[in-house]
């Protein structure tokens, strides 16, 4: 290399040296600095751990009925006991055990439905945004059609038609909740489609699949993860709704929506039977939303390097 270039490069290093803070340290600092995200992650993490460890944690079999132990109030009630911390339901099943197993159902449904709909919506949105033109026209039409359908009504009608079960609820919600993924994937793809790094990959002879999956997708993933949290919360609430109406997860499974439904006859005299699963549902959805909001803030432009 000639002298000119080597001096040139030393000059540019001196001029443009940026402090090298490792990427993960900066991410960690921003994470810890965001109170909502921190709280949400702690609560959500706790719920996930409890759900995973439920078989080893539960004090009783969540399906075991005991007629002589019906409607025992929770421990803080004057007639409560440590034997059943959250009391028992109308069939004498331990409420805490059912609650922990219910967390598994909620999380499974939320995650699976959001994954299915994420796959559908991202595929449609990326194709529409990248190719534009006629492909975009067709996919936009599909998105508009989907947006015109009231989710709850369609979900109710469909599950009434095919009958409720865990798998059915997952598939149904997966097929219904992809619209926000599609809209976000489409617009973020449109913004990146003409970026010069995509053009460079094209010139290099990269296949369209490579460009979409390896060059484009990593750049829109953070936006999609935010949508993912929203749709997870959405799916969990819809499952509770369907189960409450008897069209979702079927007894004797301990879905939180089903627990509220089974307790509704007692709610005026023994309010804890619906308060406990109701609060659990609220805390879970709140935690997921806090995480989603926090992730969105972390990805906001001013936070980016």
């Amino acid at each position, binding site marked *: *290399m*000639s002298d*000119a*270039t*080597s001096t*040139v*490069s030393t*000059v*540019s*290093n001196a*001029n*443009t040296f*940026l402090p*090298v803070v490792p*990427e993960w340290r900066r991410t960690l600092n921003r994470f810890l600095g965001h109170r909502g995200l921190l709280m949400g992650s702690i609560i959500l993490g706790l719920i996930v751990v409890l759900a995973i460890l439920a078989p080893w944690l539960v004090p009783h079999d969540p399906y075991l009925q005991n007629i002589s132990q019906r409607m025992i109030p929770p421990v803080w009630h004057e007639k409560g006991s440590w034997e059943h911390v959250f009391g028992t339901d109308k069939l004498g099943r331990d409420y805490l055990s059912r609650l922990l197993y219910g967390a598994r159902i909620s999380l499974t449904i939320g995650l699976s439905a959001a994954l299915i709909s994420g796959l559908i919506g991202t595929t449609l949105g990326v194709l529409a945004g990248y190719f534009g033109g006629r492909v975009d026209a067709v996919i936009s039409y599909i998105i508009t059609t989907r947006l015109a359908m009231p989710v709850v009504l369609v979900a109710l009608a469909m599950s009434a038609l095919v009958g409720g079960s865990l798998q059915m609820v997952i598939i149904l919600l997966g097929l219904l909740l992809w619209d926000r993924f599609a809209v976000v994937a489409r617009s973020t793809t449109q913004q990146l489609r003409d*970026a*010069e*790094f995509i*053009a*460079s*990959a*094209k*010139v*290099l*002879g*990269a296949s369209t699949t*490579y460009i979409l999956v390896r*060059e484009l997708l*990593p*750049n829109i993933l953070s936006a999609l993860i935010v949508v993912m949290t929203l749709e997870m919360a959405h799916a969990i609430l819809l499952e509770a709704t369907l189960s409450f109406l008897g069209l979702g997860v079927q007894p004797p499974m301990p879905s939180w929506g089903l627990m509220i439904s089974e307790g509704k006859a007692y709610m005026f005299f023994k309010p804890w039977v619906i308060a406990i699963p109701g609060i659990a549902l609220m805390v879970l959805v709140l935690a997921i939303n806090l995480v989603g909001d926090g992730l969105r803030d972390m990805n906001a432009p001013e936070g*980016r*390097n």
Partner: protein
Amino acid sequence: MAEYALELTNLSRHFYLKNGAFKEPTLLKAVDGISLRIRPGETLGLVGESGCGKSTLAKMILGLLEPTDGDVLINDKMRGASSRLSMSRQLQPIFQDPYSSLNPRKTIEQIIRLPLQLHKMGDANSQQKAVKDISDLVGLPERLLTNYPGQLSGGQRQRVAIARALILKPNILVCDEPTSALDVSVQAQILNLLMDLKKELGLTYLFISHNLGVVEHLVDRVAVMYRGKIVEQGTREDIFQNAQHPYTQALLSSVLTPEPALGLPEVLDSSAWNQAS
């Protein structure tokens, strides 16, 4: 050796601009019948104001945009006659904006290595070595290879883009305003680097700029573009000392204008114009 590294024959690209749902779309001849020839080892400067069609021309040469009419020949072979992969081993771009030309989610090492991976050249070890060698060549410190583009300055990023373009050892570079997004202090460094590389590797350049001043010290020949057409071309001396076309004269005097904000002087009097073209 091919007679011409790059040859454009009567290359055109038209756009139809929509004017609302009920009006006829207007025809925009962004590139209008351009013919150019660049010999191996030569540097041709393509100069014209913004919006005159320079990038559209570059995109057609790179195969990113289909021409409406005309042909692009690379090393005497028609573009399109051979695969993108083999074309990309002969011709590579340097883009204008080093902030958008590097994938923000990949490390510098991954970015420079990508061409080798796509072309399945060598194993992991030899690829890593090639990345180090080329980074050396373009004056990119090795410690930056594990960083992300966001941690680099504009000049460093443009060096990465140059390394990526050169790693397949092409003989032609299409540089579309490679320095106009950079700080003035960094521009000269990148231009010097490009010239050194040209000497060392015997590269052919199509060097696009809206600024005659930028190309003055780099090019062998200059082509002046106005509204999709080449209005004048010649050797560097021809253009800088003896420009014939009033548009070229206007561009030259705008370079020499003491106050850059004054812009193009008003010498585009139409009679002189018609005479010259």
